[in-house]
């Protein structure tokens, strides 16, 4: 089948501003949008720039706007979006070239969440694992699925309005530890998130939940963090 793909192009070394180029390629309805991009790059214009690696939705490299919504290009098939496709870089992060955005602010926000196990208590005397019941483990399972693709944060109107906001992905990272029964850093993280640029900026637009390619219920997770802040309880 014939696929028409309109792609945002911006080369900072040549262009004053971004523009769109339209390409027509021969493909299949089962092709990933990533396959279509590869075809354009391979056959028509080698200078087209985008990130990609695993090509099956687990590395988080190729988040972009496809027909106006955030998706992973490798997890979106032509049959899902039709033969007329528009592809643009994520919003809210500076475009570096074509579909590549500057991810540094995104990772900086992640790092502010103290995204690592904090537990200074002695290890079990037998040297074995810290015990955790299946129920305790299930409590934070959702937020362990995050691949840091930035689809959620760059779909969030509060993030568009203020890039000081840590954003949904950072709060998911905090959630993953706050609700882990083995972690002892919840109060530090809740303190960080209670600041101006924390959860107060979430207005439950649900864009993040809709954008997540891992189906994490992000708005719910943020709500749980907010509730923990109010009640001081982590159950």
């Amino acid at each position, binding site marked *: 089948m014939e696929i028409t793909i309109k792609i945002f192009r911006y080369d900072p070394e*040549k262009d004053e501003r971004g523009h769109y180029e339209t390409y027509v390629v021969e493909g299949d309805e089962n092709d990933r949008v990533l396959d279509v991009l590869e075809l354009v790059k391979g056959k028509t214009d080698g200078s087209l720039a985008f990130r*990609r*690696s695993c*090509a099956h939705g*687990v*590395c*988080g490299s190729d988040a972009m706007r496809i027909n106006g919504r955030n998706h992973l290009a490798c997890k979106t098939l032509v049959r899902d979006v039709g033969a007329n496709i528009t592809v643009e870089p994520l919003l809210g992060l500076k475009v570096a070239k074509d579909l590549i955005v500057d991810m540094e602010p995104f990772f900086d926000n992640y790092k502010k969440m103290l995204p690592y196990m904090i537990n200074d208590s002695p290890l079990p005397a037998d040297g074995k*694992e810290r015990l955790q019941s299946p129920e305790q483990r299930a409590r934070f399972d959702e937020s362990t699925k995050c*691949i840091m693709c930035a689809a959620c944060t760059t779909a969030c109107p509060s993030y568009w309005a203020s890039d000081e906001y840590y954003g949904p992905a950072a709060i998911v990272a905090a959630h993953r530890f706050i609700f882990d029964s083995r972690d002892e850093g919840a109060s530090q993280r809740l303190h960080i998130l209670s600041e101006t640029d924390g959860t107060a900026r979430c207005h439950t637009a649900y864009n993040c939940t809709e954008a997540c390619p891992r189906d994490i219920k992000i708005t719910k997770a943020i709500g749980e963090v907010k509730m923990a802040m109010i009640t001081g309880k982590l159950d």
Partner: protein
Amino acid sequence: MANVHQFDVVVVGGGGAGLMAGLYASKTAKTAVISKMYPTRSHTGAAQGGISAALGNYEEDKPEWHMYDTVKGSDYLGDQDAIEFMTNEAIDAVLELEHMGLPFDRTPEGRISQRPFGGHTNNETGKPVRRAAHAADRTGHMILQTLYQQCLKNKVNFFDEYQVLDFIIVNGKAAGVVAVQLSTGELHTIHAKAVIFATGGYGRIFEVTSNAYAYTGDGPAILFRHGIPLEDMEFFQFHPTGIYKLGILITEGARGEGAVLINDKGERFMPKYAPTVKDLASRDVVSRAVYTEIKEGRGIGGKNFVYLDIRPETVNKFAALDGRTNPDGSPVLITGDTVLLKIPDIVDFCRVYLGVDPVTQMMPIQPTAHYAMGGIPTNKFGEVVIDDKGTAFPGLFAAGECACVSVHGANRLGTNSLLDIVVFGKHAGLKAAEYSKTVEFEKLPEDAESASRSEFEALRTGPGKANVYDLSNEMKKVMFSEVGIYRNEKDMQSALEKVRQLKKQFKDITVSDTGKIFNTELLNAWELGNLLDIAEVVALSALNRKESRGGHSREDFPDRDDKNWLKHTLVWKKNDKLEIGYKPVVITKHQPKARVY
């Protein structure tokens, strides 16, 4: 050389092995990790089923059994001293990951949950044993995340989105690496006393593969061009269950949870090939079985695939027939929810890419190129050894899939790759840091970046007759069809000639993008050069080995030949010619015997 950075240790690669190496080296030495992607994008994150250790959380298990299974899995080509070292370290390695915060699934008692996997057995009964510690079907993702988090906690220096281009040697010692910063196109020299390569695999030489685009063999190719040998490159693992056509991995954990393979006649065919462990035989055995079913006309609808069936009614039926029970002795009775709980990502992949729901439908699968057993020769401390006498190259280390210790021999057991990166990543990091204390920095050459600059220049100014996309596809097709699961002299000779032809055409490539910022076209072209170098060594090594062993199956030499071939292959590049040599296999406790599952 405007951009020079100095570190005691530089690690190239931000996957599991690189992060573990960086974490351990940075405890005592000034360390940097450079990675061509953000580390969390590394291919470790795609590993699904588990990491093995004889924790015995459900039933009796021992490191000695883990060792024997690994030796047998390797078809007796793995070095037994290294294997014993790894399986002895396994328990502590997995517990350490838990202590770092890794969210393993749990047993009802709150311990780390474990599942059966191919080739993991109770050595007394021969029955499958639950050894694979797991976090749903995203164990690799959790390992990658946890190690990255620990590196942040311990303030490891990262150079994210820097592509390594060259290895600097001064006075016969490691002196650093050259890399290009992708966002600017600027070259950087990382001056170091010790260099650890942890660049992962090179499955992108094959058409159908579970491997990421990033798996282009950068580390092995760079070192090979500098005269370092590559070991056992003929051994490449084809995983039996890749999603039909796409090659995306469906974890062996699915069969661990009771899924079975079904042919066009509706038969469960594995008992014909592996009467004792059936669908949980070693990967090479299962891949050959799938291939044979297809070749003999029992692919589904005559096509190149069979079914993997994890529908609860199927799993429960065969569990009862096999006498398989839950850890508490109760009969296996899984439901659709069990499937969603145990392999959620697989369910997602099948729904997205195939429109198939594994709870109610069978999954079409075919073998997919998955894992390189061969690579940069190292000892168990990650030191790169450059001959048959164990001579170490001063200051050069390697770990993970790009290395060949060799613990996987001719065929890797499922879950041993995650164990490999954690154990040998750690020891490479420790040893490199220790080494860096004993030496001074070598003086850098006048222009360490000149070779990289010329390579780029050649790609930018070629006559433009060849195209990266077409050359790359040609190579992948040739390698998959002629150096694939079953091999023979005629096909491999043809593949070798074609790859050499493609290497000539590669010299005519032109990159159209003249920019510096994120010039991914230039990078992809450079990566293709690495893949072609590697493909040539794989084809040559395979053609040279006249026997069948593990992942190397020859139609013209169908049997294992211990008399002539119980030895590792080494290939060097000398004066632009490839030279083949050998080194002995280390055998300690287990003498080779027939391999039956």
